[in-house]
């Protein structure tokens, strides 16, 4: 019998080389904005840049696209007399991503308003990585990847689809140039994070199922974040999302909102409910049950400002 050492040297050498090639491809593919979920990545990137410019007495809105399409930072600023940044992005991003990209950037004296979509309160809804979230954050670089535990790192890599990687690498080596056009790219971003949706038209959308209660895991996750923020001298204020909810699930959704209010209060936060109902109708929506028409957006913002000034913050 002969020794197996030469075989093992070849085997592990080849595996090491393959690992090196794969790692290089992943590194090369990181940080490029392309067609695949590039809009989400770009929204996050722009808002992190805005958040890195501190302003005294700042109000920061953190949510998914419901906040982006449903609240006007400019109007809220006008009504409260305080600088407002709309750091909302996409509800398919996991809470840990909002934490990493946005909440890590708020500073003492800031007030964070969370008009969180219902899925952030539920267990098993958007609490694990998906193709969208992994590819969106990979388009922003490797920063988030390094924060993941080992088992999640592998899952993250497995969610980067080959065609996404191919496109990203092509972009990195100059073989492909992404032109941002169409889709949500048609709504430009403002210096305060607002999305200019003035041209958006109402389209019939199906209502969503709000939810039946705050999940225990979601509770722990959100509570831990709110407590950390409070410990850093940041005010935490929750508010209902603007959503078109199915008639049959309004009672359970109201129960969820009551539990959400308790969650904020239990975890060093506050919960503010605007006078007008947070439950909108089909004519208020543009393309999803979370995206308000420009008119509904202004109404929602103005109601929120009134509620905040009356019960939560000092308005100028």
């Amino acid at each position, binding site marked *: *019998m*002969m*020794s*197996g*050492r*030469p*075989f*093992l*040297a*070849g*085997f*592990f*050498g*080849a*595996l090491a*080389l*393959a*690992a090196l090639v*794969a790692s290089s491809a992943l590194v090369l593919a990181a940080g490029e904005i392309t067609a695949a979920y590039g809009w989400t990545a770009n929204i996050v990137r722009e808002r992190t840049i805005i958040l890195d410019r501190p302003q005294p007495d700042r109000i920061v809105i953190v949510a998914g696209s419901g906040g982006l399409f449903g609240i006007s930072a400019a109007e809220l600023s006008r009504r409260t007399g305080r600088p407002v940044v709309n750091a909302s992005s996409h509800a398919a991003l996991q809470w840990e991503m909002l934490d990493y990209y946005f909440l890590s950037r708020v500073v003492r004296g800031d007030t964070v308003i969370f008009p969180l979509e219902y899925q952030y309160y539920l267990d098993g809804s958007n609490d694990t990585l998906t193709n969208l979230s992994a590819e969106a954050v990979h388009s922003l670089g490797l920063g988030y990847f390094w924060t993941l535990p080992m*088992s999640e790192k*592998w899952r993250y*890599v*497995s969610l*980067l*689809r*080959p065609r996404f990687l191919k496109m990203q690498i092509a972009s990195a080596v100059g073989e492909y140039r992404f032109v941002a056009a169409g889709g949500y790219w048609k709504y430009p971003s403002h210096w305060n994070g607002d999305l200019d949706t003035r041209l958006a038209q109402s389209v019939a959308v199906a209502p969503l199922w709000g939810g039946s209660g705050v999940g225990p895991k979601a509770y722990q996750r959100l509570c831990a974040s709110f407590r950390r923020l409070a410990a850093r001298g940041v005010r935490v204020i929750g508010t209902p999302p603007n959503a078109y909810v199915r008639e049959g699930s309004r009672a359970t959704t109201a129960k969820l909102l009551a539990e959400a209010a308790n969650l904020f209060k239990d975890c060093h936060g506050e919960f503010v409910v605007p006078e007008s109902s947070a439950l909108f109708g089909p004519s208020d929506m543009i393309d999803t049950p979370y995206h308000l028409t420009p008119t509904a957006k202004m109404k929602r913002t103005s109601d929120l400002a009134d509620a905040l000034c009356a019960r939560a913050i000092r308005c100028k």
Partner: protein
Amino acid sequence: MHFNSVEFMFAFLPVALLGFWTVRRFSVVASSIWLAAASLTFYWLGEHLGLNINMPVLLGSIAFNFLIGFAIFRWRDWSKPILIVGIGVDLLVLAYFKYAGFLIDDVLAPLGIGLALDVPRGVGALPIGISFYTFTQIAYLVDTYQRKVREQDPVNYALFVTWFPHLISGPILHHKEMMPQFADRSERRKMELLAVGIAVFAIGLVKKVLLADPVALHATPIFAAADAGEAITMASAWVAALAYTLQLYFDFSGYCDMAVGISFMVGVRLPINFYSPYKATSIVEFWRRWHMTLSRFLRDYLYIPLGGNRKGSGRRWINLFITMVLGGLWHGAGWTFLIWGALHGVYLGINHAFRSLGGRLPVAVAWVLTFSAVVVGWVFFRAQTVGGALSILRAMFGGSNAGSVEWLVVAHISVLLTIVLVLPNAYQMLARWQPALLPRDIEAEIGEGSRIRFDMSPANGAMAGIAVAICVCLITWQVVPSEFLYFQF
């Protein structure tokens, strides 16, 4: 946890091997304890992580059979009734999990006998590996009764049953062929065992990921359509039947190669389970080469106790038929498996009758007949419903709509069939190291091995490394669906 999962290949297996080789330097007994613990961990980390029915059933089954084995040896006068109780309870547990739902829903209900019992139903309710570890333990009880083996150490017994390379999908082991290997205190050439084990594992992984999974894409939608009652063309029916024939072969033989390779990495040879079955030129020969440890079990513990061929040719055929029907049902509780088993019972009967009449066929004709019979059988094995299977068979042999097939599909199937028929198998290529336990006839047939040999050169190592890396990429990015077919049995 599957052998082709990244967690298994790059986390569990390296830790299990490192622990084994480290512990073995100090104590062979401790290394057996380590392997038993690793095997139970492997099972616990499996598909349904956490607290569920799997682990209690496995541990209960081990404890029960160990005690029964002990009792059989201890109370010789009572050994037969104890054996009957032991086997009876094993079969009852298996029947409860695997066949109760089928019996109530598919046998009694159509006869108008309604039983409102809450019993496990479907593959998901089946404790993982129960068919394999139940048969392994029944064989142990019979061997103990026949005074062929004796096991007094519960850890050794647990290791024998749970040894992780075989636990989920076989091969079905015999105590006497495994335990001496675990207890062997002689010096082992670790690097060589690792190298050969990795080579066999890599061959199995390639079979599974590069050959079996992609060809499944040709079979799955057509069988689904047939089961849904849709019309199937002749061409697509043949594509589906042949594609599944190849998928099953590469899937299960790939799994077995991986199991043999993993076990060999610690110097323990598992019994060979596949030996180029599609090269067989008779059904008798096919069953000597396909799922060999199941065939051996059915022969030794069912066919021979039924009387085998000792009571005349008529009784022999009946025994064969019963054995094959039960063998079919072992694969799953369903009419399609029963028909598949019965079909092979008939095939074997015809084969034996033809032989006894002194009939001989040219090799090519014999191969075509054998292979066609096997393909027809797999249609029942794969289909979810008898109607779906008959629909495929009607289209294959009497379809009015010929239909057409893309040439790429034909080329794909042709290439795989060529691999099956022309290339030597892993055990021929690695004959020099004998990574598996071989029956005498196969050992003699392999001899010095094939002309295509696998040596332990760095180039071959690099080739295996690249193959594994490609497979890992395909698994990671789920380019094709991946699940071992025999996992469900």
